[in-house]
C-alpha cells in the first residue's frame, strides 16, 4: 500500500499543481520536477524486480510489478520525464508565436499529461483483463485533450477521429474481454475470472472457441490503439497534430502500452497450447509483418514532417508485434526501448524545427545543417536509430527478430520484413537528406536552440551508449538468449 501511495503521489501532486498554479513558467518547472521525481520513484520500485532481486512487487490486489512490467514502467517514466522537461522549453518558445497559447490551455495540458502517465502505468501494472480495458480506455480519454491542444481545425479533426476510432476499437476489446470471461466460466472456477494469472492456470480448461473469439476481438481493439495496419488511420493524424511533447509521449509510451496489453493476452493464448506457438502468435506475427510492409510503402510518399515519423512508428509497431508473436518479452522490450527513445527525440526535434521554420511541410523545410548543425546531427542519429542502422540497439533487435523467425522457419515473414525494413530505410533517408541539404528559406527564429536540444541530445547519447553496450545488456538483463 505504501509503495502504491509513493508511486501515485508525484502524479497526483503534478495534476494538482496544474490546477492551482496559474503562472505557466513556474508550472513548467514544477511539472518537470514532479516528472523526474516520478521517474526516480519508479526506478527504486521497479529496478529490484527487473534485476531479478525480487520476483514481484504487489502494490494492491490486482496490481503488481512483474519483470516485463518493470522494464516498461521505467521506459514510460523516462519518456514522460523527457517530454515534460522539453515541453517547458516548447511552451516558452510557443508563447513567442501567434496565436499565443492561452495559459488555461497549457494548464489543462499539464493536468491531462499527469493523469495520462498514471493511466499508462496502470495498464502495465494490472493483472486483470477488466482493469486493463478500463486503463486503456482511460489513456485514450486523457490523451485526447493533449492532441486537442492547439484547437485549430486540423487539431479538432484529428482529436475527433482519435477519440471515435479508438473508442470503437476498444469497445470491441470489451466484447472480447466479456467473451474471455465467459470462456473462463466453463472451468472448475464456475464464477469465472478476469485475472491473468488465474486464466493462465486455468488455460487448458478454458472453452477454447469462445476464448479464441474473445482473443480476436481484443487483438482488434488493442491493435487499433497500437496502430496496427489497417486500423492505423487515426495514428498519423493524432501524432502530427498534437504538440511535439504530446506526440513524443503518444509514440514513445502509449503505443508500447497497447502492445503490452496484446502481449499479456498472448501469454494466456500460449498457455492454452501448453506454451507452444499457436493461433495467437501466428496472428501477431502476420499482422506485424503486414504492418511493417504497409507502413514502409506509406513512408515513400509523405508531405508532413511529423506524419513521416508517425508512419515510421507504425513500422516499428509492426516489428514489436512480430517480437511479441515470437514470444520473447526481452526482444519486445529491446525494440520498444530503442524505438521510444529515437521517436521521442525525433518528435521533440521536429517540434523545434516546425517552430523555427514555421512550416510542417517537408517541401518547405530545407537546409537544416545550415540552420542548426546540432539539430541536423541529432536528427540523422535519431532517424538511424528509428530505422535500425548500427551502431544503435535497434539494429541488434531487428537482427534478433529476423534470426528468431529463421529458427522457426518463417522464410516468407523474413523476406517481407527485410523488404519492409529496407524500403523504410531508403524512404526515410531520402526525406531526411532533403531536410538537411539545400538552403533554408529564411533564417530560423528559435530563441534558445541550446535549451531546445537539451533533451533530444540526452536521449540520443543514452541510446548511443546503449547501442554500443547492447550485447552485454541483452544477455545479462533481458536474457534474450534464454527466452528464444
Amino acid at each position, binding site marked *: 500500500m505504501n509503495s502504491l501511495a509513493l508511486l501515485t503521489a508525484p502524479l497526483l501532486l503534478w495534476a494538482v499543481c496544474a490546477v492551482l498554479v496559474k503562472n505557466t513558467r513556474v508550472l513548467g518547472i514544477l511539472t518537470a520536477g514532479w516528472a523526474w521525481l516520478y521517474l526516480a520513484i519508479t526506478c527504486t520500485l521497479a529496478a529490484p524486480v527487473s534485476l531479478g532481486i525480487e520476483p514481484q512487487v504487489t502494490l494492491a490486489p490486482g496490481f503488481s510489478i512483474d519483470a516485463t512490467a518493470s522494464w516498461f514502467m521505467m521506459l514510460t517514466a523516462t519518456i514522460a520525464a523527457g517530454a515534460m522537461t522539453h515541453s517547458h522549453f516548447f511552451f516558452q518558445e510557443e508563447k513567442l508565436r501567434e496565436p499565443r497559447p492561452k495559459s488555461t490551455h497549457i494548464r489543462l495540458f499539464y493536468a491531462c499529461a499527469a493523469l495520462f502517465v498514471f493511466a499508462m502505468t496502470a495498464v502495465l501494472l494490472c493483472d*486483470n483483463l*477488466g*482493469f486493463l*480495458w*478500463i486503463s486503456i*480506455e*482511460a489513456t*485514450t*480519454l486523457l490523451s*485526447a*485533450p493533449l492532441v*486537442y491542444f492547439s*484547437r*485549430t*481545425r*486540423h487539431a*479538432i*479533426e*484529428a*482529436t*475527433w*477521429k482519435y*477519440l*471515435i476510432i479508438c*473508442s*470503437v476499437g476498444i*469497445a470491441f476489446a*470489451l*466484447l472480447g*474481454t*466479456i*467473451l474471455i*470471461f*465467459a*470462456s473462463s*466460466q*466453463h472451468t472448475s472456477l464456475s*464464477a*469465472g475470472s*478476469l485475472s491473468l494469472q488465474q486464466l493462465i492456470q486455468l488455460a487448458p480448461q478454458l*472453452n477454447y*472457441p*469462445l476464448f479464441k*473469439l474473445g482473443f480476436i476481438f481484443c487483438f482488434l481493439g488493442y491493435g487499433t490503439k497500437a496502430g496496427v495496419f489497417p486500423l492505423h488511420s487515426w495514428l498519423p*493524424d493524432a501524432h*502530427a*497534430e498534437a504538440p511535439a511533447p504530446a506526440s513524443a509521449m503518444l509514440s514513445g509510451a502509449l503505443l508500447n502500452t497497447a502492445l503490452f496489453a496484446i502481449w499479456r493476452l498472448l501469454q494466456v493464448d500460449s498457455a492454452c497450447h501448453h506454451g507452444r506457438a499457436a493461433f495467437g502468435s501466428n496472428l501477431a506475427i502476420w499482422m506485424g509483418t503486414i504492418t511493417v510492409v504497409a507502413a514502409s510503402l506509406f513512408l515513400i510518399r509523405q*508531405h*508532413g514532417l511529423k*506524419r513521416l515519423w508517425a508512419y515510421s512508428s507504425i513500422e516499428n509497431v509492426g516489428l514489436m508485434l512480430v517480437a511479441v508473436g515470437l514470444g520473447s518479452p526481452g526482444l519486445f522490450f529491446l525494440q520498444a526501448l530503442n524505438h521510444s527513445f529515437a521517436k521521442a527525440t525525433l518528435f521533440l526535434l521536429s517540434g523545434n524545427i516546425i517552430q523555427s521554420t514555421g512550416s510542417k511541410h517537408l517541401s518547405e523545410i530545407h537546409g537544416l545543417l545550415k540552420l542548426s548543425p546540432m539539430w541536423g546531427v541529432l536528427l540523422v542519429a535519431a532517424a538511424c536509430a528509428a530505422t535500425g542502422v548500427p551502431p544503435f540497439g535497434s539494429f541488434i533487435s531487428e537482427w534478433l527478430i529476423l534470426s528468431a523467425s529463421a529458427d522457426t522457419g518463417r522464410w516468407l515473414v523474413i523476406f517481407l520484413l527485410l523488404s519492409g525494413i529496407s524500403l523504410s530505410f531508403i524512404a526515410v533517408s531520402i526525406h531526411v537528406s532533403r531536410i538537411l541539404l539545400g538552403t533554408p528559406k529564411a533564417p530560423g527564429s528559435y530563441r534558445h536552440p541550446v535549451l531546445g536540444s537539451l533533451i533530444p541530445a540526452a536521449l540520443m547519447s543514452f541510446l548511443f551508449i546503449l547501442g554500443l553496450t547492447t550485447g552485454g545488456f541483452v544477455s545479462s538483463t533481458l536474457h534474450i538468449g534464454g527466452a528464444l
Partner: protein
Amino acid sequence: MLGLAETLATAAAIFGIFMSGCRHVRSAIYLYAVQTALVASIAFVYSASEHTGPALNISLAVVLAKAVGIPFFLGWVVKRLDVRTDSGAFLPVPLSMHVSIALFATSYYLASSLDGAAGTFSAAAGATASISLVFTGLLFMMTRRLAISQIIGFLTMENGIYLLGLHETRGMPVIVEMGVLLDVLAAVMIAGVIVFRIKKNFKHIDVTRLTGLNEQ
C-alpha cells in the same frame, strides 16, 4: 423470469432498429433512452431471479447514468447547437433501417453458429438481440453525418456489448462494471466538449465534411 429477460432484450433490439430509421436527432436520443432502460431492466430481472446476478444497485446506477443522465446531456447539447435532423450519409435513412432488420436476422444466424462452435453459447433471443444492437450501433455510426449521431451509435454499440455480458456471463465483477461505466460517461462528456468545438470552428457538426487531414 428468464423468458421476461429475453423478451425485454428483443424489445431493446427492436427499439434500436426504430432508432436507425429515425431522421430527427432528438427522437433518436429518446429511442436510445428507451433502449437503454430496457437493457438496464434486464439487469434487474437477472439480479431478482438469480442470486449470482449483478447487484441491484449496479443496475440502478446504469439506469440513472445511461438511460437518464446521458440522454439529458445529449438533449442539452442538441438544444444548444440547434441541430434537428440528420439526413444520413452513404445510405438513405429508411434503407439503413432495412439493413438493420437484415442485420438482426444475421445476428440470429451468428448467435446460433456460435452455439454450434462453442457448445455453450446460448443461441436464444438474448444473444441475438445483443449482437443486433452492436451491428445497429456500428451501422448508425457509419451511415450518419452528425458528430452527435456518432456518439449515439457508439452508445448503442456499448449497450449491445453490455447486454451480451449480462446474457453470457451474468455480469462482470462489480468493480469492473463500475470502471467501464465511468469510462463511458467520461467518453461522452469529452466527445460532447469536442462537438461544441467542432461547431465553433467549422460552423457545422457534419463529420463527413471533416476532410482537411485527408489531403495532407
